[in-house]
């Protein structure tokens, strides 16, 4: 039922490697995107008017930069950012370069996700913390982030799935993983079965991320009695 091409790829471990590369790129990019996006999200939330430390101009500035990156379609951003990748990792080809691109695309997205999660924290709880004489940084560390934790984790699951989608696109300009396999073997050589195998594998990975993530959320969220 599968083509010779597929059987050859499977026997040589190309598809298995593709799965690994996809997972690796996704997880690593998400992690680094959070290292950049989380502080940015906190900044967006805290400096907003009505935030705990409003700074109008800074909020606007960061907001505009984030919006610019978010409004460029990933496929275009990727090509445009190739020089940046070369600057950071010394090459504009391969997984390392793709990871740089994924991070550039994902960090602003993550920043917005984080911002919206933090804004879900009830203003009254923040006010209570202020009434107890909590310094601003401690409000972030002890109130905003812990109280928003379940929502932050939900957000990270959504981000990771989005980044997984981006990683497949990276296959078109020299990335590796399931996206690249689907394009080079499936699309360019017209082996439909390979495209479908890649699609199904991607779906499975997404389901696993989603399922695993939601379990963690359920475990962490103390708002539902159990």
């Amino acid at each position, binding site marked *: 039922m599968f083509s010779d091409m597929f059987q050859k790829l499977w026997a040589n471990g190309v598809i298995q490697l593709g799965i690994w590369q996809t997972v690796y790129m996704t997880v690593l990019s998400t992690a680094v995107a959070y290292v950049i996006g989380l502080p940015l999200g906190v900044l967006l939330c805290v400096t907003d008017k009505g935030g705990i430390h409003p700074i109008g101009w800074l909020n606007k500035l960061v907001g505009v930069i984030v919006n610019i990156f978010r409004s460029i379609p990933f496929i275009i951003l990727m090509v445009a950012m190739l020089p940046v990748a070369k600057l950071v990792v010394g090459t504009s080809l391969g997984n390392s370069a793709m990871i740089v691109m994924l991070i550039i695309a994902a960090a602003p997205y993550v920043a917005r996700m984080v911002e919206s999660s933090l804004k879900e924290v009830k203003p009254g709880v923040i006010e209570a913390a*202020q009434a107890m004489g909590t310094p601003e940084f401690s409000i972030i560390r*002890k109130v905003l982030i812990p109280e928003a934790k379940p929502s932050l984790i939900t957000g990270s699951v959504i981000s990771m799935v989005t980044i997984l989608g981006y990683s497949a696109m990276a296959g078109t300009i020299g990335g590796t993983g399931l996206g690249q396999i689907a394009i080079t073997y499936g699309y360019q050589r017209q082996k439909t079965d390979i495209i479908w195998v890649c699609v199904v594998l991607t779906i499975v990975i997404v389901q696993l991320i989603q399922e695993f993530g939601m379990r963690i959320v359920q475990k962490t969220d*103390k708002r539902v009695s159990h």
Partner: protein
Amino acid sequence: MIELKQLSKVYNPGSANPVVALQDISLTIADGEIFGIIGLSGAGKSTLVRCINLLEKPTSGSVLLDGRDLTKLTPKELLLARRSIGMIFQDFNLLEQRTVLRNVLYPLEIAHTPRQDAVKRARELLQLVGLSEKENAYPSQLSGGQKQRVAIARALATKPRYLLCDEATSALDPNTTQSILDLLQQINRTLQVTIVVITHEMKVIDRICTKVAVIDQSRIAETGRVSDVFVNPQSQIARELILQKERQPGEIRQGRRIRIVFDGTTSYRPVISELVLACQAPVNIMLADTRDVGGVAYGHMVVELPADVRQQEKITAWLKTSGITYNEEA
């Protein structure tokens, strides 16, 4: 002692539509008091209480806490000062992702209290509010009254001398309200904590407060001892709040109406019976309400006098000679 001096708060000052929330508020809250601030919604009472711990920065005027002007403090000093003023809220504002014990520990963490002392203190407080068995529960597992008890324990953790209560019982049912009010009274008496109570409910003032300020349209309309204000409200707003507008007699009227006031000395006398017997004139009771304020019965009664003017005069003369306060019902 908390002193507010010529306090005012204007939102969006200098803009096209500034909103005046507080105007020329001066109040003195002495140590040991339970001071009630009552007003209708939008009167400015929530802003007022937030000016005491500077969650809202007053536009002008000063807030003196034991003589120290909080509006002149540096941000750092203000954080420290706030730890001596506890606060509880209508919707409790507990940290939902922390257990009961860790909620009470929160202000102690902020104050860098050593862990062991902090846990000991938190457990004492949970015992005080009667929630020792719930220390590992999460807020979502508690009832409203229990949540407010946790909030009270949390507010008291840093041993504040003042406790601000912003509509603390407004989200609770009458029984729970009573138990929370009892707890506040107990805290006031045993821990010598001065309590400021913001409410729109007369019964809250009635039950626990020693002094009351009535706030209306951003200003203090009236202030004084609860018993005085209750017996003889001077301002229109106080009359409305205390005599409860919705329970005022209806508009269908024939004769003259007077309000007889029981000031604590006459309330056990059968005044109406005596009046009817002495004057040989029927009166129609339109509304009657008495209450226990600090162990003394206070109340008022609205009666409609007969249409005959001579009988009316007879009745008012009898009231005067009997030393019973009354005023004309407009």
